[in-house]
């Protein structure tokens, strides 16, 4: 007996609008302008993305610091089957990248062909979107620098 399975679209989403606040907002505004903005933590380290509170002491943070759009890979993993919504449609590396001038790293996709080309310590440069709107998608991914 043939059985038809009924299906219906059901998207999981967060249907609220929220303010990003002064620090994360500055980071997002920076992305729109093609800049990467961090914040100086209680111990002097520069956190990127900029965050509102120190992750160790919980102090309010306020000193914004612009860092470079070049940096180094601090760890990585290879994604050979990209899923819907991920930054690239072809295989890429997930990486934590510490931008030059920053002390912490953030998650980015690295468009580098195959897994043999990337390693911890590799130098990378941001690839920016042509039209930027103030979201994380303004930073498309990174490319390896020779």
């Amino acid at each position, binding site marked *: 007996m043939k059985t038809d399975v009924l299906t219906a679209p*059901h998207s*999981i989403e*967060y249907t609220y609008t929220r303010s*990003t606040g002064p620090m*994360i907002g500055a*980071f*997002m505004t920076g992305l729109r302008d093609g800049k990467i903005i961090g914040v100086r933590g209680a111990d002097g380290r520069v*956190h*990127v*993305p900029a*965050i509102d509170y120190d*992750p*160790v002491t919980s102090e309010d943070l306020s000193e914004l610091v612009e860092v470079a759009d070049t940096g180094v890979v*601090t*760890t*990585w*993993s*290879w*994604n050979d089957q990209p*899923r*819907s*919504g*991920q*930054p690239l449609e072809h295989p890429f590396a*997930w*990486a*934590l990248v*510490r931008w030059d001038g920053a002390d*912490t*790293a*953030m*998650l980015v*996709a690295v468009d580098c062909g195959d897994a043999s080309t990337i390693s*911890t310590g590799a130098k990378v440069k941001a690839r920016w979107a042509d039209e930027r709107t103030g*979201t*994380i*998608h303004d930073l498309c991914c990174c490319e390896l620098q020779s």
Partner: protein
Amino acid sequence: MRNFKRPVAIVASASFETPSEPSRNEVELLLPVIHDALGQVGLTQQDIGFTVSGSSDYLQGFPFAFVGALDAVGAWPPIRESHLEMDGAFALAEAVAVLQHGHVDTALVYAFARPSRGDLDRTLSIQLDPYSVAPLWPDARGLAGLQAQAMRDSGRFDSVPEVPPTHVADGCTAVVLAVGDRARELTKTPVWITGIDHRIEAPALGVRDLATSVSTRLAAESAGATDVDAAYLHVLYPHQELLLRDALGLNGQPVHSSAGPMMVGGLERIAAAAKAVAAGDARRAVAHATSGPCLQQNLVAVLDATAVLEGAAA
């Protein structure tokens, strides 16, 4: 937390796990497991002073989905009840705290999930930073790979295993707790929770040293996880066991690692450790549960065949 004013014991537990449950819903999965656990000590829901569960509405795909699962215990007449959007192990920690208040002597803790219906790697990305990480939809396995590579780069581990696909399973666990003499009435082999604590690390992956598990070490210190003769670890990917052995200071004891169903696996490890202690296979065991990406949050419980005597806290 340890040396409780009111000693708490695990007096019964039951679990069920299957790779993919084809037809039964969450309530139908829970009913036989909860009745099994309560039946082991001759209790019904009316005898339970506090009921608490752990699950994730995101796995069921609609808000307040956990409320529906209450049909598995029956919420009439009204019961004292709580829910955590976390693994059931953290619900057990809440129950231990509630039992210290002195108003109730028994608690039922349960956890359930059916992640096989969705794409677990994708669903888990919703727990990440909503501004700069979740919009990239990073798969859980990809994030685990960042930790495995950080371990390789640290040079502190002889061999770090490759990261397999994320474990997907459906199932549930139920645990019955009782205090002091009530526990001794209910079973000849109460397993005492002599210490339990959980600690969390920064949400930003790039802030943490991924090649250590600071939160596990701190939770273990607080729970008094020393002099154990067996370990039951909640391990979602094999490399995590190496970090946990290190953080818990394990040194040759038998280690029983399992992932279990998402939101259930940690409570299931506590239940498995309690069964081993009750059966005499271990005298004093450490059980662990984790939550979040790359071992972000960790719970450690110490289970002992012997209670710390009431009033011995000082």
